[in-house]
């Protein structure tokens, strides 16, 4: 059965590291839903979050193949246990006239989002949450309002004292 998995990877913060992961996924035909990467508190390490879809067997191969990359220090399939998943979205909305502006503000309140930039005819809204929540927001606002969306892709962390560290 195909399931969604969130794989967190700690890897050497080297220039070629990201292309090794991307190359692995394309060469072996694995599916990537999203991929985010940034340095950690230790600048020599990057943390990557990969969301993928696949059967038990495929995800097992994905984690083995990732572990085999010499730049990968450690990884965990955080969806194996309880975890928190967050994604950031910035969305620019056309906000002309009072009714549109108040309609958008209402949505922002309901979703506990924030307006982070305002101009005469636009609002830019920031929203974090699970991917589903971001999808729901997009659905809730009138498509005619949407000028631009940018999403970070999912990141995640395990609950409790479990942690992915060197």
């Amino acid at each position: 059965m195909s399931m969604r998995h969130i794989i967190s990877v700690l890897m050497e913060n080297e220039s070629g590291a990201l292309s090794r992961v991307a190359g692995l996924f394309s060469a072996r035909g694995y599916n990537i839903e999203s991929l985010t990467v940034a340095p950690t508190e230790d600048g020599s390490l990057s943390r990557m979050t990969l969301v993928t879809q696949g059967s038990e067997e495929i995800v097992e191969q994905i984690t083995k193949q990732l572990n085999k990359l010499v730049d990968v220090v450690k990884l965990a399939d955080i969806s194996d246990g309880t975890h928190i998943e967050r994604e950031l979205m910035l969305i620019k909305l056309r906000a002309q006239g009072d009714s549109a502006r108040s309609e958008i503000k209402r949505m922002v309140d309901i979703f506990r989002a924030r307006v982070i930039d305002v101009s005469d005819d636009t609002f830019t809204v920031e929203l974090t949450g699970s991917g589903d929540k971001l999808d729901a927001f997009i659905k809730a606002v009138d498509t005619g309002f949407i000028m631009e969306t940018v999403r970070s892709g999912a990141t995640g962390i395990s609950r409790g004292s479990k942690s992915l560290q060197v």
Partner: protein
Amino acid sequence: MQLSGGEILIQFLKDEGVEFVFGYPGGAVLHIYDALFRQEDVKHILVRHEQGATHAADGYARATGKPGVVLVTSGPGATNAVTGIATAHLDSIPMVVITGQVSTPLIGSDAFQEVDAIGITRPCVKHNFLVKDVKDLATTLKKAFYVATTGRPGPVVVDIPKDVTDPGIKIEYEYPQTVAMRSYHPTVKGHPGQVKKAAELILSARRPMIYSGGGVVLSRASAELTDFVRQLGYPITSTLMGLGAYPSTDQKFLGMLGMHGTYEANMGMHECDVLIAVGARFDDRVTGDTRKFCPNARIIHIDIDPSSISKNIRVDIPIVGDIKDVLNDITAAFKELKQKPDSEALASWWKQLERWRSKQCLKYDRNSDLIKPQYVIEKLYEVTKGEAFVTSDVGQHQMFAAQFYPFDKPNRWINSGGLGTMGFGLPAAIGVQLGHPGADVACVTGEASIQMCIQELSTALQYRTPVKVVNLNNRYMGMVRQWQEFFYDSRYSQSYMDTLPDFIKLAESYGHVGMRIEKPADVEAALREAFAMKDRTVFMDFITDRTENVYPMIVAGKGHNEMHLAPECLMDNPDDRELA
């Protein structure tokens, strides 16, 4: 010691104990070649094509167990090396390939002879490094050798921009004795719980089968494997890559398995109840249709690379570790268990295996007026007393060599299994001969394959490597022709060449001895004469039966019990020949 980057590279190779560098010069590596010129410890072997350099280094590595080292220039030097890098990668051969690169300020500017060597080689190396600062050169080289030779071995590329080897910039050099890599720790010791479970299952088997592979050669675990088989009395089969790790002339050995494996090995696989896979990766040439693979067996798999395990076939007891250690641990676990193998069940299993063996699946027509390729290999075996190092190219001749030259020692059978690279055989033989100067080295090849790296005959003369080329000349790309005969109604589309060179003259023009052999009666004498010429490269052009096929054969979608068998083999019922 104050050294330039070029000097550091050469001094490092010397300190690392590297004997030979196989290479070809060019602009981006001229500083390195200049440093090479001013010393005598590291010997450079000048090939005639960079593909030849990689195969020669690879052959040297396979025959000696030491990493092969290659040095090529940027751009076309690097791209020409790619086929050889991929060949080594698929067979897990330790190799360090140094590619020159344009100077760091020019990288990314489409400079003269610039290619993204790191990008191009990424999918076919174990790892690769770009060195941007001469201060990192020595430690990076140390890491490259460490990664290439440990765990599951493989090729590592080190891309070095020209300014990093600048003779005007000298820095302090000290050989890095140790290497620290937090992200790379291959597992060597097997998990004790898994080892115990495996030991129990092995002893409880009624129809066991040991399936060994190239990992045994790479782990240098022949002695441990041989002990393991002897104490159990179990049958053993091997992949193409594992041949020689267990003595092929021993009665417990059933021959190779898989697509062109023996009847007894493949039937044994199909009927076994416990399969013990040792350093083999369940390749599709071995498994046939995976849904029909070992239908009745519980499977134990020992492999150093976790990603080899349960990749193609789900196994019951995986053990990640080095074969040497794991086999020793399993043997120790046997001693603690009171259990003994069921000798009655084993005896009746052996009876069945011997019945299969008695069909003589490798039988061929010995009364033909034409030279049979199998016969040449049998004679090669006799003349070299089974002691030669045999390299091969890719095709029918490769399978005949694997089937008819029973290797009793590891590291003697040198061929491209995973990538199946035509052109491998001759340069590999040169590398083997450099590693074993006094030994008999034969390159079994075909008239198509040999032409892919024929230019290395020139290298063989320059370095006086007296390899013996055994060309099984069937005037066809025989392996392709065989598939076309079976699956395309004998439409031989482009599987022959209208013109072939006169191989005798060709060999002579390269400064070697050439022989043409056209009659079966002349085969042995020719081989004897050739191998008696200890200091000459001899090219033997055997004109063989062009219609011969490789049997047995498992075609796509079939299981191990569904082989095509040779017309000559002894089936009780003629219908059994087409078990499909």
